[in-house]
């Protein structure tokens, strides 16, 4: 009866109104032999006991705020989240509301999503944004759906750069089952010397979409303008998977000519939360809006002449189009999208640029210091943002085990996804890492090599 507000007396009166004798009598349609199973679950805890149990589980983890110094990124990043963000997310008016199907009493959610769409379009340099996807990986998979639908299934090839996040590529492979798509370029046996422009060779007149990542999974920043021009010349669309913090500093995929810009919004004020929930942003050009999946909020007026917002172009969606819908998405990441909108509003033009520059400065200081250690060096010479690939002289797993003994969460071991990249470690540095953190990393890594 944990949260049930009905007294036994009230229950009995209600049963009488219904015309049955007991609660059990309400379930006669359920096959008798399977009715009322005994569930083998632990007995109920009180709130106090539950908090104790959950605190125990949480404390059994080592977290990156109080237990470990983290240099781990690879798609999820440790950034500072201003206090205001969670105070807004804890408003019951936001978090206990449903999808805004009744606009007259949901303008808070609707205007907030409209502002989120606007902020994401401004950040990526694109025309429109949807109300969100589940995460960066599924948003990228939905870009494939858009491109596939745009050419009505007549172009069935998708070219994916091998330097797109390995888990994003895995999700695209899952989504593509049953679509009879040809996936090209998605090869873990990567030649690290190859340049993005070489991907253009794989794009032909059967290609619906080319996908690249910005900065790429190894942290490198490329100007994709020429590549996008070449792909467009062959009639293909181009999707850029972008890190949103990097977009405060680097030129936008929109200005390079991208047709779709997607990514994970977690760096924008969302805790890592062991991987989720985060939010997938999806922005595109105006001409593709009718093929875009997911909810969309548009401006209008109410019958009193007030500016207001509604879910619009709903005829694209599953509840109307059913099996002919581009996507089956229904629930998205509303509350998390609100969190990123609050974060972007609060940091604004100056604050976000400052965060990006801090990441850039600290990552470059770390790269410069680390590359002075004997036997360690940067693997690549291309410009980078807040993540870079370090070549070490032994397996990364070995190095990371040593770092962990010293309270440091080391970088991502690239050999897990790319067999040829043994001894390649992907290091992320954000504004959360002090100079002292970086100096400790350098010191401990020097010991590995002399130990």
């Amino acid at each position: 009866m944990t949260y049930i507000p009905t007294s036994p007396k009230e229950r009995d009166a209600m049963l009488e109104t219904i015309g049955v004798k007991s609660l059990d009598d309400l379930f006669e349609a359920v096959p008798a032999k399977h009715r009322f199973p005994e569930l083998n679950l632990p007995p109920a805890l009180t709130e106090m006991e539950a908090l104790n149990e959950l605190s125990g589980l949480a404390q059994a983890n080592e977290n990156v705020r109080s237990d470990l110094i983290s240099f781990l990124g690879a798609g999820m990043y440790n950034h500072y989240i201003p206090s205001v963000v969670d105070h807004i997310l804890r408003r019951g008016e936001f978090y206990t509301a449903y999808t805004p199907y009744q606009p007259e009493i949901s303008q808070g959610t609707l205007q907030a999503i409209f502002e989120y769409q606007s902020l994401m379009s401004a950040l990526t340099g694109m025309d429109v944004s949807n109300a969100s996807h589940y995460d960066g990986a599924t948003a990228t998979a939905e870009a494939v759906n858009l491109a596939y639908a745009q050419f009505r299934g007549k172009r069935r090839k998708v070219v994916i750069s091998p330097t797109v996040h390995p888990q994003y590529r895995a999700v695209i492979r899952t989504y593509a089952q049953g679509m009879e798509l040809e996936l090209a370029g998605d090869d873990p046996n990567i030649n690290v010397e190859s340049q993005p422009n070489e991907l253009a060779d794989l794009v032909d007149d059967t290609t619906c979409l080319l996908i690249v990542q910005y900065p790429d999974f190894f942290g490198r920043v490329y100007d994709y303008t020429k590549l996008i021009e070449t792909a467009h010349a062959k009639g293909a669309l181009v999707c850029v998977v972008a890190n949103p913090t990097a977009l405060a500093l680097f030129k936008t995929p929109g200005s390079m000519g991208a047709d779709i810009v997607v990514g994970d919004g977690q760096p924008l004020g969302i805790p890592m939360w062991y991987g989720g929930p985060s939010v997938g942003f999806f922005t595109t050009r105006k001409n593709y809006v009718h093929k875009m999946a997911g909810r969309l909020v548009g401006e209008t007026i109410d019958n009193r002449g007030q500016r207001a917002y509604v879910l619009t172009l709903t005829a694209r969606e599953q509840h109307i189009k059913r099996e002919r819908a581009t996507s089956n998405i229904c629930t998205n990441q509303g509350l998390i999208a609100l969190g990123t909108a609050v974060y972007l509003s609060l940091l604004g033009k100056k604050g976000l640029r400052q965060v990006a520059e801090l990441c850039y400065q600290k990552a470059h200081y770390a790269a410069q210091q680390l590359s002075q250690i004997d036997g360690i060096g940067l693997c690549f010479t291309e410009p980078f943002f807040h993540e870079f690939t370090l070549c070490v002289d032994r397996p990364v797993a070995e190095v990371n085990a040593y770092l962990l003994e010293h309270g440091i969460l080391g970088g991502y071991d690239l050999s897990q996804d790319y067999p040829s990249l043994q001894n390649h470690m992907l290091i992320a540095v954000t504004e959360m890492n002090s100079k002292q953190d970086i100096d400790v990393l350098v010191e401990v890594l020097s010991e590995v090599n002399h130990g």
Partner: protein
Amino acid sequence: MADAVMEPKVRTEPKIVEPTIFDLSSPGRIGVTMPASDVPETALPPEELLRQDLPLPELAEVDVVRHYMRLSKFNYSVDSGYYPLGSCTMKYNPKINEDTARLPGFLYTHPLQPIETVQGNLALMYQLQNWLKEIAGFAAVTLQPAAGAHGEFTGVLMMRAYHKSRGDTKRTKMLIPDAAHGTNPASVGMMGMQVVTIPSDERGNVDLKALEAACDDTVVGMMLTNPNTLGLFDEHIERVIELVHGCGGLMYGDGANLNALLGIVRPGDVGFDVMHFNLHKTFSVPHGGGGPGVGPVGVAAHLADFLPEPLVDIVDNGDDDMPPLYGFVKPAKSIGRMKAFHGHFGGGFVRSYTYIAMHGPDGLKDISQYAVLNANYLQARLRDTYKIPYDRICMHEFVAEGRFKGSDVRALDISKRLMDYGFHPPTNYFPLIVHEALMIEPTETENRDTLDAFAEAMIKIAKEAKTHPEILKSAPNTTQFGRMDEVKAARELVLCCWLPEGYDLSQ
């Protein structure tokens, strides 16, 4: 373009109730100050790689707080009142869940940390997998899918992979009842399969004759919501499953309505092969104004090898001195990965774990019994006023017709008028098989006073429909906003706002 001719020449500017965050921007305002850099400076990359301007708003902290606070007040929510939105299970969201989900050990762990450093997270996921298996009667559970529709897609991919692994390649048809949620056919559409719609009979059950006729060796399976979207438990569920299994098909359960079944019946026991859970409905994860959801999928033993990767399992049993070590495993014939990382851990798994732990087996049964009690009570109170087209003992929800003889009042008008009485409307126009449907799901967390007040408002509205229909047609009248011009939104397609014209970006 033809529409443009119809536009009046003179347009009055709309009244702004709350400016956008861009309207509120003022050049030079600061919301958050970040610390100065503590490392020697490195030159920025070449100019041609950098962006020229960043057109984001500039506001002070107090501006941002007041803006979002004002917006929040425009929302109706479970915390503010009764929300009987059918098929959405808008139950009370316990406050303790908000605290447990935000414990620092959960908030600040990275999904790619070594498993030895996140044993608390993994133990929680392992336990939650086991609890969901036990609650619904399945052999294995993946927690990865992000929402119900995502779980459906996962389930359909597994059904396809199962048939394919047996060399059974001619199965391309999915049977879906006419009362199904739109996500069911849409999930099937994403796979290029064919949807065969199965009608309902006069008692709201699957029409057995039509089902029997559709069952052949080209059937992938059937997707069934039970209780269905009429709120009715299929009286021939065992026969339905027998027919589908009989032609070699698999039975998919849409778990959207699981709130009626906790401790009542386990779908796996009845013969469902695969089912998704909506943790954001049944297990009190808040809906967040449209997500995030959480859509774990349970499967019977013969589908366990096809689950998405990774699952949480014990990878080292431990001994008297050492606890077991939890880690990730990949099922032998996995369909692959459904999203990056491990699912909606913080916002989803922690809240649901807290909720199940605080209920135990008896508490879970209470949830479903009282959810069904409340729905039947409300159905009994409204039966004389509103037509209930499939009138029998319902489960957690029921569907009434929102129309009256000799009146042009529609379900939409009744819904809008309910707002004037302080209630969120039921789901309207769904399921599609009921005219002017009003789908009412009270949930177990409402008391009798609330249900009575809602019933009285509904009865009053039915009277108004006869005496003062114009009040219903113009409703809502007491809310901050009135009915919307949805045509204008779709025609003009204003999907973004920007900084005001002439805004000084140079500062």
